[in-house]
């Protein structure tokens, strides 16, 4: 697919979503966008994710195939570093450590290298390249913080850790309302990921609309959120009223919440609904990845393949039958003379 098609179809799809909300608000469809869409989105998210995970879970894992990234456990005197124990895990305990590092620290991405070819020579060199890791992890964690901060709208009283997050987030105490750094970082990180996708020729070449779409969507969400907080102020009390009424399954749409709120909410809903049906399922999938979540002990504990096939083999008897004379002549021992 050409870059233009991939890029612009995703861009206009998100723009179109914004258009849909604005049209809907023009037609006073507040209940649709304030109540129906959020419920449907959340339902799709949970049902979809459960479906996905169950679908994967029902597929057997016929072989134990960890990608080993360290010294195996073998002879007792062969030293295994901490890194070896984690990346060539012999027991489930170490597999858990490996998985935690993958999920929480993006361990494998941290390893990233770039290659450069000097044609004179020729000489290939490899150098550590952690930009993708840096922006990816920044993006994911800032998103998480932003998400958790939003719990203040859905809870009453607001839990302590949300207050705590808020206070860290507004650490710099600049501006009024105080600037919350996570939202800004999120926007910067996701923008970087987009720029990388466009400017790295290889990544650009492989990118599909479904790669640009979530990026534009998240940019839209972060951007509308920032606009809402700092410029087009909305009635925060009314927003919380709506959020709580949704949580209590007693939806009430208060009047006078600004339009920008509905844009923000709708984009979030689309993200939720889209999640299980897209590459974003990697969030759940990583936990099931057989190259990461299995120990490297296949010679120590037998792994069971539930569909281990019965196959036709060529037995020794058949072999000897075919070669008996030749074996005899060559002086090899035989089962049957």
């Amino acid at each position, binding site marked *: *697919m*050409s870059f233009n098609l991939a890029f612009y179809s995703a861009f206009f799809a998100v723009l179109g979503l914004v258009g849909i909300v604005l049209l809907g608000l023009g037609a006073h469809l507040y209940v649709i966008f304030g109540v129906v869409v959020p419920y449907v989105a959340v339902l799709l998210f949970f049902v979809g994710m459960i479906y*996905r995970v169950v*679908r*994967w879970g029902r*597929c057997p*894992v016929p*072989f134990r*195939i960890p*990608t*080993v990234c*360290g*010294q*195996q*456990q*073998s*002879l007792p005197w062969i030293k295994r570093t901490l890194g070896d124990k984690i990346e060539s895990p012999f027991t489930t305990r170490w597999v858990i450590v490996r998985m935690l590092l993958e999920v929480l620290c993006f361990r*494998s*991405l941290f*390893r*990233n*290298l770039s*290659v450069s070819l000097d044609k004179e020579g*020729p*000489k290939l060199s490899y150098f550590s390249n952690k930009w*993708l890791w840096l922006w990816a992890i920044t993006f994911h964690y800032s998103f998480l913080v932003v998400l958790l901060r939003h719990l203040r709208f859905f809870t009453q009283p607001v839990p302590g850790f949300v207050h705590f997050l808020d206070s860290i987030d507004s650490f710099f105490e600049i501006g009024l309302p105080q600037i919350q750094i996570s939202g800004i970082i999120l926007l910067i990180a996701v923008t970087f990921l987009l720029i990388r996708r466009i400017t790295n*020729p*290889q*990544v*650009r*070449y*492989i*990118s*599909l609309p*479904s790669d640009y779409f979530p990026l534009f969507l998240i940019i839209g969400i972060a951007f509308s959120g920032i606009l809402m907080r700092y410029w087009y102020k909305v009635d925060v009390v009314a927003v919380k009223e709506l959020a709580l009424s949704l949580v209590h399954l007693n939806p009430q749409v208060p009047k006078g919440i600004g339009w920008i709120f509905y844009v923000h909410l709708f984009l979030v809903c689309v993200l939720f609904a889209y999640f299980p049906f897209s590459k974003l*399922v*990697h969030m759940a*999938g*990583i936990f099931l*990845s*057989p190259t990461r979540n299995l120990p490297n002990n*296949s*010679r*120590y504990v*037998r*792994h069971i*393949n539930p*569909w*281990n*096939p019965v*196959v*036709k083999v060529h037995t*020794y008897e058949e*072999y000897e039958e075919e*070669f008996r004379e*030749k*074996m005899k002549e060559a002086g*090899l*021992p035989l*089962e049957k003379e």
Partner: protein
Amino acid sequence: MAELPKPKELVDSIDYTPPAKPWMETRPEFKPGTYGYGVKAKNLKIMGFPNQRDFFPSEEDWKLPENWKEIFLEGMEDRLNRFRSFRLFMDICVRCGACADKCHYFIGGGDPKNMPVLRAELLRSIYKKYFTWPGKILGKLAGARELTYDVFKEIWYYMYQCSECRRCSVFCPYGIDTCEITMMGRELMNLLGCNLNWIGEPVANCYRTGNHLGIEPQGIVSIFEFLCDELADITGVKVDIKAHLNRKGADILFIVPSGSYFADPGTYTMEGEFLFLDYLEKKYGLKWTMSTYASEGGNFGLFTSNEAMKRLNAKMYAEAKRLGVKWILGGECGHMWRVIHQYMATMNGPADFLEVPRNPITGTVFEHAKETKMVHICEFTADLIRHGKLPLDPSRNDHWVVTYHDSCNPSRGMGLLEEPRYIIKNVCNNFYEMPENTIREKTFCCGSGAGLGSEENIITRMRGGLPRANAVKYVHEKYGVNVLCCICAIDRASFPPLLSYWVPGVDCCGIHELVGNALVLPEEERGIRQRKMDLRGNPLKGFEDEMEEE
């Protein structure tokens, strides 16, 4: 046969800039030198595989059955349901591109479809079209595409330009393993009889004669005897090899890849192993045997389908049982050890008729192999050296300046990293590592693995081998390295041409060749005999003049 361009020309042709045309609109050109010959009908017949006809990838018509598309898609659905890896890896790739420049075929060639992500996308696009609803509805916009005859050929071309080395999988944030995807792709190809002959023939040979090369039992006897004669000329030790073949009641069954006894430099490793085992028998009473029936450690079934792999692998346990040995010792071979370490017990176990491997000489119990009952010769030798059971004279390898190549499968499929290094450091004095981003779990394939080592595939092989050879070049120039040591038979077959192409002046050897050189035999220890030649018949350091005179 393809004309192989000069190294300079090949390097100059590498261009990492993707073409202007989107990848769904480009098709591979089947240029001579970039792909292997198709499988012969006779080999498919021996195995009872589908679509038995001589297959020529260069021809327009691949002689597929009329319902080939159905077979392909049904096969795909079946595998999506049987392998979690396959379904998961089809679903969760985010196309971040971290894998892009990790593939040796991409680094040495620049073809974007050799980026692991795009290689997987070739199949993923089919998966989306036929098995996901966004793909069914949105088609191309969702990255989905029809399975056409051309697309099928394209998938074939790139499934046989992946050596299943798993380097990309090390770097993937979700552990997506292109090897798994290639394996699935190749299983689908085999449903339609579209294997390479360089895989299909060894599989058929191995099934019938016990080894990839199709050597019949009497042939093995004469080859082994020839090697033992050579060994006797060099060391004065006569190994009575016939007494060790198909011998019942031995302690261990020793299984090596047939590459070790078929051609040099593999044969030097084999001679080293003979010498080593003979030493252990005479000195410590270790009883060993080798089998003509299970005369192959390697398993090209791995490159065909999981069923084929199981059918070939079954011989190891069957023969160990028939001969009544206690446990199995495995030789130096790369993919063989992927099969033994990660698949064998699952497929053909439990091997409850064998004992937990115990080295009778040192008393060491190989606890980590208690289920499979199979020990790598490097583990075994390292244990012996550690316990001081092998008198070694590393200066006998002083004519070598050694570097070590981690073969893909023993490193990323097993984690056998320190044992070989421990042995090398004990048997030679000059050892230098290649740059750290090219060894251990980040090691590069020789470019000829997974059945791609055929002569007619030479351009792809030289391209794919560039990253490995280039790292060798670095230590060759910096430290004067003149031999690349490895523990893989495919390596030993493919490095000589690869190195002479990219780094002339560097040889290739196995670890047990070096062990054989360094091993001080009883007569030598007592001063009755003196070793003047290495196992290749070349003079040892200090004996150059003497040899000339003779």
